[in-house]
């Protein structure tokens, strides 16, 4: 038990502390491709440190939700990092709290709370983004569910740790259902983390989707929301890498857990390269075409489900 607790601590701290770094690296490389020296890879850490020191401005109408909601969303992300394989390749302490589907439902819970605490500000700009997120939610949530079940239907258990072992075998890895699920999850990852071709971190308010959720926040709650979104990007990305793309390489034991943190970094380089290619090659889709992007992801994941049982 002690060993599993230690492994859990390594997994969770690894995820929490390293997640901003990956965003930093992507942004740095994106800048460099745009002919710039660009920001430091540690920029997300600098931003978070600064925000922790700043005051929080609350709109007159906003309630406790606006201020304390972000703490709760961050905590849910922390809880998720206990239950899915984001560093360590085997279940750790508290992992059985929820299965893979439960994890997907927890992601939805975060989305729900985030929307509530953003809309509590009463800002029209936030409402604009919220209405967009809500209208894509049906496809995004469905894809998250079906892609996670793609795992379950292949292995007979809704346990992501089993699936990552299952995919180690070459025939399983190369099977059609696995490939479809892999592509589908990547498309979903782009949407969930607000990347092109779905969204860009531009300045135009009229194009905001996910950015609208942090539009009114400042100070510590903003820091937590930002850190939360780094963590979300890390969690989903790591699941994709560990369960779908590169299931190999995980080490066991406490020392193995420490090594896994480094191994994850190497695996992430692949995702960073892919993201960079996508982010620099595409323009932002028309708003209603985002639906097509998600529908493609959804259909692929449903196909993957069908292939795995028929």
């Amino acid at each position, binding site marked *: 038990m002690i060993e599993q607790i230690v492994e859990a601590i390594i997994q969770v701290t690894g995820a929490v502390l390293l997640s901003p770094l990956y965003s930093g690296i992507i942004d740095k490389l994106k800048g460099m491709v745009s002919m710039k020296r660009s920001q430091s890879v540690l920029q997300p850490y600098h931003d978070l440190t600064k925000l922790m020191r700043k005051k929080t401005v609350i709109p007159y109408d906003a309630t406790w939700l606006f201020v304390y909601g972000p703490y709760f969303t961050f905590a849910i992300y922390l809880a998720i990092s206990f239950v899915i394989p984001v560093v360590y390749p085997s279940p750790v302490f508290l992992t059985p709290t929820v299965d893979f589907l439960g994890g997907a439902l927890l992601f939805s819970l975060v989305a729900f709370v985030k929307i509530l605490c953003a809309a509590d500000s009463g800002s029209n700009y936030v409402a604009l983004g919220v209405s967009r997120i809500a209208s894509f939610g049906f496809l995004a949530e469905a894809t998250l569910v079906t892609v996670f079940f793609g795992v379950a239907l292949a292995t007979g258990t809704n346990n992501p740790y089993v699936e990552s072992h299952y995919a180690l075998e070459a025939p399983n890895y190369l099977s059609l259902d696995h490939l479809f699920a892999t592509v589908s999850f990547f498309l979903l990852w782009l949407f969930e983390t607000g990347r092109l071709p779905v*969204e860009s971190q*531009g300045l135009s308010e009229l194009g905001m989707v996910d950015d609208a959720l942090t539009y009114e926040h400042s100070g510590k709650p903003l820091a937590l929301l930002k850190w939360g979104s780094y963590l979300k990007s890390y969690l989903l990305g790591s699941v994709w890498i560990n369960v779908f793309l590169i299931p190999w390489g995980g080490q066991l034991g406490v020392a193995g857990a420490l090594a896994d943190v480094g191994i994850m970094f190497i695996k992430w380089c692949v995702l960073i390269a892919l993201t960079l290619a996508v982010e620099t090659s595409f323009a932002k889709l028309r708003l209603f075409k985002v639906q097509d992007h998600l529908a493609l992801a959804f259909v692929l994941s449903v196909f993957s489900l069908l292939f795995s049982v028929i």
Partner: protein
Amino acid sequence: MRFIGRLGRYWLYSDRLLPAEYPSEDFFEAKQDDISGPAGSFTFDYGPVAGGLIESVRIRLNTYGEYIRRATLEPKKIRTVKVTGNVQDALLGIERVNGNFAASHAVAFLIALEKASSTVAPPAVQLSRVLQIELERIRNHVFVIHRIAETAGFSVPAAELLYIMEKVNRVIGRVFGHRYFYGVNGFKRATTGGGINLTEFEQITEEFQEVFRGLLESRIFIDRLQGNGVVTDSRSIGPTARAAGFEYDARLDGDYSTVYAQLGYRLLRHSSPDAFGRLLIRGEEVAQSLALIRSAVEKREEFCDDAKPDDASVEGIGLGRIESPSGDLAYSVNLHDGRLIELSLLPPSVPNIRLFLESVVSSGFTDVPFNWESFGIWMSEVGVKFV
């Protein structure tokens, strides 16, 4: 004969002025009525301060959510510019009506002034002015395309276009001593520091052409622009009109049209009356402006006619109209005893705003920034009061 817009108390046509039927400050005040719609709709205020806007302007969109029913616009920054009196002091204000079109404004004003004084600037000065306007056009078109690429989240071309724009700025700074042509022009006068390095400049525009062609290869990018902001109004001007297939250009029918003819100017147009067509026109006009600059440079090595300012001293009325990067720009002046007593301005942004507000109806929120940027509107030249 084509309609251009309101200039002071007159309707300005390409070849005449007709008295306007009713007195009005500008069209904004006429449109400031209630735009609220049926139940379920609401009015979304965008601006005056917004990250997606370069300048302050309040755009009001009445909407059902995403779908825009009606739009109005309020210029929130309204500067008072003192122009009456000393012509030299007036010029300082005119240059700063719109920094990005400073050469165009100064030149149109000076032409009006020279006409009122019944003189013309020496040919060398005229060439220098055309050179300035075309440089300004290149810079502005590059900037507009940069804004569109940036709005589309296209980070690499957006950065490259900004890189090109800065290079153009440096050329301007090197040749004229100031990146926005401030203090360059005067009555029958234009100051230039040195000649343009044409080879360097050609490299810059070549680089631009590569980026521009690259942009046109992206399906998603084109999709954002096609069908967005359709304008088929025959009362349009500048790139908007030329994208819709109208042969409207003050370089053909305005002042200095003879200079342009000597430089071998030929009008470009497209039959795509949307934001995409405007992008195409702007992209192609960059190359065309380069050709104009080249022949202007070849026509005369030395532009400067650095004579001491020669104050206007006569009485009279004058009208100057040139083609700014966004369309017709006209000034009319009234001189009395060598002093300016009245001045009217028709900035290209006023007709363009009208066209924007018409074309934005029934499009979606995310289309608005593309549409807005494609017109090349500058609020600074709209929100000025001359005293």
